[in-house]
């Protein structure tokens, strides 16, 4: 046990917790004002819902003793045996600190999905879907990668959640657009963010919290953490720049929304490799991440599917690029990528990317269909017209 590591991980956990309501503000700012609360609410209540589910059973499924590479056993059900002393995943911090740090990751991941079905989801269906998804998609994914499951065993590198967090949520987002269809008027009416200063606030909270996310994933206050902190920051910075330069070229002017979106894209892209690459490759990962995600978002317009807030374009594309880039640029400790003489790492990364997308997309599709067929996913036309704030929550966001 080490006080410095404990202090560091606990503060990092607080930072990561702050991200999810921050994500709510980020997402909520980009919908029309009649849906602002419903959108924020989804992220906010996920902090409540998933945290409790995680303590009850999620943690043990993800981090209980490995069963065949597939899932954790039930040793830690109801946090039984998760105490103030060190646990199996770190010698230097209390087991409870590790558990709660991981809890914050389990919280934000399903919250990311909500961007895809924003402005048309029923609140009840959303709660049920999220509950199922946590146990059936997230917990296994976390186990495979961080809980000594098969992906870890095969050597896949995912420092802070390119697969577990970003690809998994993006695959679910894609499934959502398939099952739920477009918002009323999509392609015909203007869907314009209603409060961009709040978007920047949300992005700032995300960026701030992401230091906890990535540097905290070192689970220790050391040079490794410092490196992850630096790569995180530089990739975000670089992607904010490359996104707005793409915009500048494409439509004549750089935008604030573009800068915020680019920063998030960079943060996503560096997540899988934050602790494995050094600063200059991190800048490159960010630059390319900004370009790729911007292009993917543009492409969405052409493909015509309605991923309301670009979960696939940002988290899917950014996370995938980051996982591959880790296979190219990893150079720290035993993690070595293609450019450092280890081509096999790239193949492992590609395999883990493919498996993640396939599993998460199919499983999410099934869950969405299931909920749709039972209690229903989509708000009625009339509810969508009035806005979800009134129709789902009897509230309105702003009063004159």
């Amino acid at each position, binding site marked *: 046990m080490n006080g410095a590591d404990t202090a560091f991980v606990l503060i990092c956990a607080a930072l990561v917790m702050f991200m999810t309501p921050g994500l709510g503000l980020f997402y909520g700012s980009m919908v029309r004002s009649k849906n602002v609360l419903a959108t924020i609410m989804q992220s906010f209540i996920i902090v409540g819902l998933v945290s409790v589910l995680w303590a009850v059973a999620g943690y043990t499924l993800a981090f209980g003793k490995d069963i065949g590479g597939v899932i954790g056993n039930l040793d830690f059900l109801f946090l039984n045996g998760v105490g103030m002393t060190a646990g199996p995943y770190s010698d230097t911090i209390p087991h409870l600190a590790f558990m709660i740090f991981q809890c914050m990751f389990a919280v934000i991941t399903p919250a990311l999905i909500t961007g895809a079905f924003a402005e048309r989801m029923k609140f009840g269906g959303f709660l049920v879907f999220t509950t199922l998804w946590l146990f059936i998609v997230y917990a296994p994914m976390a186990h495979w990668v961080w809980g000594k499951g098969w992906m870890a065993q095969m050597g896949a590198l995912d420092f802070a959640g390119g697969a577990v967090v970003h690809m998994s949520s993006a695959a679910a987002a894609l499934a959502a657009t398939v099952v739920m269809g477009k918002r009323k008027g999509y392609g015909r009416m203007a869907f*314009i963010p209603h409060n961009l200063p709040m978007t920047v606030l949300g992005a700032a909270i995300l960026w701030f919290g992401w230091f906890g996310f990535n540097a905290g994933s070192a689970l220790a206050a050391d040079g490794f953490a410092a490196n992850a902190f630096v790569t995180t920051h530089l990739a975000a910075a670089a992607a904010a720049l490359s996104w707005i330069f793409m915009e500048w070229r494409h*439509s004549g002017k750089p935008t604030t929304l573009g800068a915020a979106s680019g920063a998030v894209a960079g943060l996503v892209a560096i997540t899988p490799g934050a602790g494995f690459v050094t600063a200059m490759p991190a800048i490159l990962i960010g630059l390319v991440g900004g370009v790729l995600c911007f292009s993917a978002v543009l492409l969405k317009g052409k493909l015509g599917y309605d991923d309301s807030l670009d979960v696939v374009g940002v988290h899917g594309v950014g996370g995938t690029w980051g996982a591959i880039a880790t296979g190219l640029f990893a150079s720290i400790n035993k993690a070595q990528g293609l450019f450092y003489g280890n081509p096999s790492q790239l193949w492992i990364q590609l395999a883990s990317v493919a498996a993640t997308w396939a599993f998460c997309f199919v499983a999410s599709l099934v869950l969405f269909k299931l909920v749709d067929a039972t209690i229903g996913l989509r708000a009625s036309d009339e509810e969508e017209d009035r806005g979800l704030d009134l129709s789902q929550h009897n509230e309105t966001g702003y009063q004159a």
Partner: protein
Amino acid sequence: MKKVEIITRTFKLDDVKAALSEIGIKGMTVSEVKGFGRQGGHKEVYRGAEYQVDFVVKVKVEVVVEDSVVPDVIKAATTAARTGQVGDGKIFVVPVEEVVRIRTGETGDAAV
């Protein structure tokens, strides 16, 4: 009595108000409106999606005055609001059949 409605640029509001005050107008009512006209709108871009916004923010000033004052109001407002660029706006004159001051119940000319 007539109601003179002046629709013009937002940043001209203070000038119009001053010009009307100068000719003795003691009251007016203002609202924020959006105008569509020859001036055209502007483009907005959000994550690569371009939207043509046709409406321009304008301000509407409503002044109810005696018939005889209408020409003065028009003159004052026109002078104050004019920039000479497309989009300066319009003035409409509408008949008013009755005016009441709520506080006193006065009607007609005494009420404005």
